[in-house]
């Protein structure tokens, strides 16, 4: 079916917490063809592989605003609260996060790397 319009792969994104890795096609705050949409952090982005629409993007992850590690957007690895924090950093500074975030995290067991 037709020609596949995939952006050129810029590199491999690998989450430093869970090891998830996938090629990304864009890094920054303004993925192509997103018009009014702006990302509030610099993200590793790829074309959404689960959408037939070529212009749907998928944010894979970004850098933790504290430790600067690449981390995926999975809720076991990081959270976004005005900025990106990897969960290890969140745990370190847990008291600075609002109650909602704290109780949310309390329910979670510490993540171990899936191998």
């Amino acid at each position, binding site marked *: 079916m037709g020609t596949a319009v995939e952006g050129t792969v810029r590199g491999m994104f690998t989450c430093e917490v869970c090891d998830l890795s996938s090629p990304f096609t864009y890094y920054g705050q303004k993925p192509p063809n997103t018009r009014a949409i702006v990302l509030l952090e610099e993200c590793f982005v790829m074309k959404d592989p689960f959408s037939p629409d070529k212009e749907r993007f998928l944010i894979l992850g970004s850098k933790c605003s504290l430790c600067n590690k690449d981390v995926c957007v999975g809720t076991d690895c990081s959270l976004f609260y005005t900025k990106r924090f990897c969960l290890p950093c969140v745990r370190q500074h847990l008291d*600075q996060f609002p109650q*909602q975030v704290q109780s949310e995290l309390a329910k979670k067991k510490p993540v171990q790397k899936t191998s």
Partner: protein
Amino acid sequence: MSDDRGDSRAWDWDSPQCRAQLDEIFFRPHDYIQAGSPEHKEFWAFFERFQRFKAKRDMFGSRAANKRDPHESKKKRSDSQAVDLGLPKEYDARYRINVSVCTRDVEERLGVSEHRQRSTSSGPGKQEVADCRLALLHFLDFTQKQSFGKLAKLKREQKSLPIFQYRERIVELVRTHSVVVVAGDTGCGKSTQVPQYLLSAGFSHIACTQPRRIACISLAKRVSFESLNQYGSKVGYQIRFESSRTPVTKLLFLTEGLLLRQIQQDPSLSQYQVVIVDEVHERHLHCDFLLGVLRSLLAMRPDLRLILMSATINIKLFSSYFGHAPVLQVPGRLFPIQVIYQPIPPEEQSSRSEKLDPRPYLRVLQGIDQRYPPEERGDLLLFLSGVAEISTIMEACQTYATHTRRWIVLPLHSTLSLAQQDKVFDIAPPGVRKCIISTNIAETSVTIDGVRFVVDSGKVKEMSFDPKAKMQRLQEFWISRASSEQRKGRAGRTGPGVCYRLYAESDYEAFAPYPVPEIHRVALDSLVLQMKSMDLGDPRSFPFIDPPPASSIQTAMTYLREQGALDARGELTTIGRLLAQLPVDVVIGKMLVLGSLFNLVEPVLTVAAALSVQSPFLRSAQHNPDCSTARQPLHSNQGDPFTLLNTFNSWVQVKGERGSGSRKWCRRRGLEEQRLYEMVNMRRQFKELLRSHGLVETEESSVSVQDRSQRRERLSERQRLHQLKREHDLQENSRRKVLRLEEDPENAGSSGSDEEGGTGRGKKRKEDTGSNLDIQEVKFKLRHNVNELQEAAAAGQDLSSWQQALLKLVLCRGLYPQLALPDEHNATRKDSEQVFHTRNKQGVVIHPTSVFASDPEVLHVPEHESSEFGADKGQSNRHQLLAFVTLLETNKPYLSNCVRVPALQALLLVANSVDSNADCTRLVVDGWLELSVSDAEAALRVLSSALTLRTEWERLLQAQLSQGGPGSTAGLGLAGPKPSRRDLEKLAEGLVRFLLYTEVSYSLRRLTALQSQNLYIGPQQDSGLPDSQNLNPLFPGMKTEPDPIKGGLRVSSYFTYNCLSDSKDLYSECLRTFWTCPHCDLHMPLTPLERMQHEATCRPAGEQQPEQDAESGKAESSSSSSSLTRLYHCDVCNKDLTLTSTEILKHKRQHLQ
């Protein structure tokens, strides 16, 4: 937050107008989400949920949260370390979203009012825009989470596969070795993962073969999904009629047969860098052959990488075949399975003729009901050997199921309709288990999840080929240990399971370790033909991984020689080369080639296609009176191929008139429409093949006739269809349906005449509940032009009796030597006891699905026409033979797909060997059929016209075959003139006249073994002497010579005169009678043979052709290159002359006068 609700009273979120105004801001034509798109619809649905959620939260949640917040955050803050993250004090879900949407510019342009006056401005106010924006942000966040969730799950699953940890090792091995064997059991993930590992390691142009077409499609789908290229074509598949391959395809799943065809076209297989052969342990014919071909190809392509993937069965065999290639063994992922041996007690064992005793099977069902609570899910898979066994056990299980209401019984075998087969994937309601009763199709081809219990009968029915009887045989065997383990494994795919083996452990120990490879079981005709066309040398010395018995190859060679595909030296003939290109049985290929000669292409294409797919007639519908009545008009008592032809043509008409209404039409007649779709595809492939070989003309006419608007219409229609197909493909992973317990037993059963009959019962079915789109119809329309097909069908629909006769002859010559003779006593037997004989097998019967099973009288010689007494006993001109497509022995040897032909005429026109006595009143065909003609004059006349017709037929066929086309003799500069239309018409007319209007009474019988042995007089003492009377000098052109084995005179490649041991050769001279040739003025006493020869070469004055043409015309197929003239030594003039036979006759006459 949006608490001043009072303000927005005039604003109605549910009003389409209001929404449209917000669409103007957020979902403009170039925005990320556009108004009218599916996402846009999803957004508004999301919006409603979001608003409801907000309202709820505002009412209950916010109070509590607000209260606690200030205290606690203050307290914690004091303990905090040096770093201040600068996070906002008050929690807002908005802060959790990393996306923003800037619409200020649009808002300003649209003049969104800061303080909207209730009455004057109806546009959205700041608040509404903010609400909508917030919802949009949450929506975007939600969709991101959804997609990322899928991605993470996928990656997680990939990592958890047993093969994952071998990823680098595999890539490393492939880099360093030209052949690698990867062995792993079910569930290790080799089929989906290995190709991906290679892709991501940078390999491209990867071909991965599969034994089954369906696996090609499903693997391509799965792997493209997993490699995040679901909507691209990096990963594709190619099967016989379908391909998703594009120039960017890097990984292609294809069938073994197709890869072989590609090697046939491109012997170095330069289009691939890596070839993966999956499931090599299944040992299919094509796979074994492919391995042999690839092994020799590796010498030519040292850069090629070959990976064999197998279950952990017999790995050494594969490794050592490829010079001890490295083996990587991967553990499978199966849950523990408990094996329980429950051998069937002797009193419940059935003998061969009896029905299977269901008690052992019912005991297992009861046991499960007693031991496992119904809340514990898990279905049962029961392996039986065949369809009859399935229906026996099903009946019993169904009774039990109706009684307990804890089971839904479903059959599974390949002759079920696809919809029926599909049901095994549906889900049973809570508290009910599925009981799937299957053939070995569920051992490898069909994988059903959720099976917890397996019952293994230990039996399988396997096809084997009996070269002596030239018959396929479907026999029941004990399975192998490998199959037994495979069946057991089906219980442990989704959780721990139980396997009940209905045999003793000692039986298991005694099983063969592996199943017999296909190459040892089946007829090798097509394989040998393909090997010949690939220039692989002598098939007997080909280095197969496990060579088939030499006798098997010999049988195939002999067969191919009989069929005219190989010459006496075992080399491909012109027609053989063409047949090797056609992906069909030799007999079907022959039909196609023969049909292309006459104006019969369309019907022959249809028949050839119909005979190459499974029958569209569902067995289950046979006993349904409604179906039988509806089918009646399709039946032809000429034979099953004609019924198939009628069916296809009527279906095409319905399709043209009613489109997808054909589905109902088929249902009413108990037809599996899928088979008709397959036929139409195959038909087209055949046509293209014939066209590429110059055997049918390219049709420009129908295309050019279309005017521009029609073309445009067709184009937009195609676009619409493509769109439909895309949509269908997208939603294909739709959820499985839940089965109903209440379904009437026969509805779920194999005897199900369900869904049809217009009772409305079928209304609940899939097609009505699911999408109403008939995807097959869409694909059909995309691939075929209905109008063109309709024209073709119309051409085939009303065949004149002439065309019908010609078509029969073409089929018969294609099918030859697959002929059967009705037993002479059939007329006095019951319909169900009609017996037939083939050359190699006596006492075969007609398959109940055949038209002749229900209407055998049309095969009987009418009583009043055959003389009952004396020498004339059995004399008639109405004897018929059956030409058949398959002879398959199950519980009886059955003939399927038969067509009836007039015996004498058909035999004389197609048989490879016709032997006669001196006056040609006794003819023996192929050493087993004896025809006795009472009237010598008539016998001679018939034989003579047959000879003439065959010569001409052969000449025109050779001329047709030498017409261009790739791989034909054209490249060698041998392309002769195209057979003229006039000649063809004349031949067709001659053949039809001969078939329909030959009036000669004869008796027909099969010779006994003893008679066959002492058939010939054998070589005569004086045969070498030039003055022998037998060495008739009148027939130089025919290269008449004494037959070294049979005796008598070999007149043509297929006709030997006067070689039968009862011949009156002593008196042959007395048979000379005066005769005048109607064409030339010859008048002299001639023996029957001399007369025939003269007739064969003498043409009416008006038809005299240029000498050269006439020569090639007279040449027999076997001696086509030899010139008709020969050196003739005239004893009277004592001169050596180069003359044709006619010229010699004339010359001799000079001396007589």
